[in-house]
């Protein structure tokens, strides 16, 4: 059952050193900044972080990297105009990088959440990112064997959650949230607003509460969210 936490600190309590942490967001859209700040405060280190990017500016994931808590990044697109924190750590040899094509990253987490043992994917066939991987030709096309990617913890941001953990998202901030929510042993979600059971139309629920372990209300991420409901 979903527990509603009073604070982000309570929501991230118990995350251990060495955990694999799935962190939602595409750039800053959907980035669970309050939960990451709480994780920095909580102190877990030697983390493997799975996220599409490797931090922007100085906040959110970039702050976790800057605090020296991340041993390895698994992501699709680390290099951006404002990824200077990651760039510095990488060039200094202080962080490991596993580069995964974006769709394969999402599908590996989907497989983990859906109980799939592995899958053949056409993406990256014949490229350097397929080197060392098992391949198979199916109907004349080459596929690469990809394994599930599980998290010990997922930290994601949704728009509104009810007390049973049912979630709705907002626009392209949805991105990796619904997939990551299924793929971790402990899924922790921050929302702009927690509502009573029955307040969400069941037809509109994107992530059913079965995937959500802890929920915390952090208020709107920015002014635009205050108007939407």
């Amino acid at each position, binding site marked *: 059952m979903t527990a509603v936490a009073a604070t982000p600190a309570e929501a991230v309590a118990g995350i251990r050193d060495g955990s694999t942490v799935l962190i939602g967001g*595409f*750039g*800053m*859209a*959907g980035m669970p900044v309050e939960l990451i700040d709480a994780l920095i405060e909580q102190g877990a280190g030697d983390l493997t972080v799975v996220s*599409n990017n490797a931090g922007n500016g100085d906040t959110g994931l970039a702050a976790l990297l800057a605090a020296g808590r991340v041993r390895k990044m698994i992501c*699709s*697109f*680390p*290099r*951006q105009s404002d990824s200077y924190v*990651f*760039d510095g750590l*990488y*060039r200094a040899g202080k962080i490991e*990088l596993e*580069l*995964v*094509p*974006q*769709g*394969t*990253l*999402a*599908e590996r*987490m*989907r497989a983990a959440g859906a109980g799939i043992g592995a899958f053949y*994917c*056409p*993406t*990256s*066939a*014949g*490229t*350097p*990112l397929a080197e060392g991987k098992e391949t198979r030709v199916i109907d004349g096309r*080459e596929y690469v064997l990809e394994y599930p990617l599980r998290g010990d913890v997922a930290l994601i941001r949704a728009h509104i959650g009810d007390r049973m953990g049912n979630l709705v*998202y*907002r*626009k*392209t*901030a*949805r*991105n*990796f*949230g*619904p*997939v990551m929510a299924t793929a971790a042993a402990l899924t922790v979600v921050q929302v702009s607003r927690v509502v009573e059971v029955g307040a969400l139309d069941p037809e509109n629920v*994107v992530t059913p509460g079965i995937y959500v372990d802890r929920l915390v209300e952090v208020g709107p*991420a*920015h002014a*635009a*969210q205050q108007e939407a409901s």
Partner: protein
Amino acid sequence: MTLTAPSARTAEHLGRGPLSRDEMARTVARDIPRGSYVNLGIGQPTKVADYLDLGSGVVLHTENGMLGMGPQAHGDEIDPDLTNAGKIPVTELPGASYFHHADSFAMMRGGHLDVCVLGAFQVSGRGDLANWHTGEPGAIPAVGGAMDLAIGAKSVYVMMSLFTRDGAAKLVPACTYPLTGVACVDRVYTEQATFLIRPDGVVVLETFGTTVADLAARLEVPVRRLEDAAGA
């Protein structure tokens, strides 16, 4: 693939210079059939949107989870929760839909997108694409959705300059940069010519300020006129 070329012969547009970037974008847009679902890559391909009929003709996909993407957002329209794959704020059009990343890439790999337009460092004569990594020491590799797009869309169009600043051809017999995808490119739009990549070789659809004979002399990859390749 059906050709939207005005004729079965290669068109040599002489008495003019090479295409400007805007003219290139317009040329790509002209060749995208009405009713297509289209993904425009980061950078130069984004410009193609300026020449597409987004209201009714073409639906734009962005891999971070949206169909029905509208133009770039300005001023009060800017919403940090609504961006394109380049993380630029955009708008939504009537009929838009949102979905998560696994669905977004499933619709790409599953062959549901009609066209994607990508930039490139190099394209080979058999349609291999290199556009994600220069392989230079010290460069931080980043692939994003490039490999998924390259093998996913029904038609893959590349938009690039035909030569580097140093004068090296970017349409080559074999790519020297790390590959993004194998035999995945269908068309190459450049400022000097548009090329079709076919199983039987490279065919010139049209030229701008140059001739097929001149291009053939400057490229290492063999190129043919449309009428010489017709029926192949």
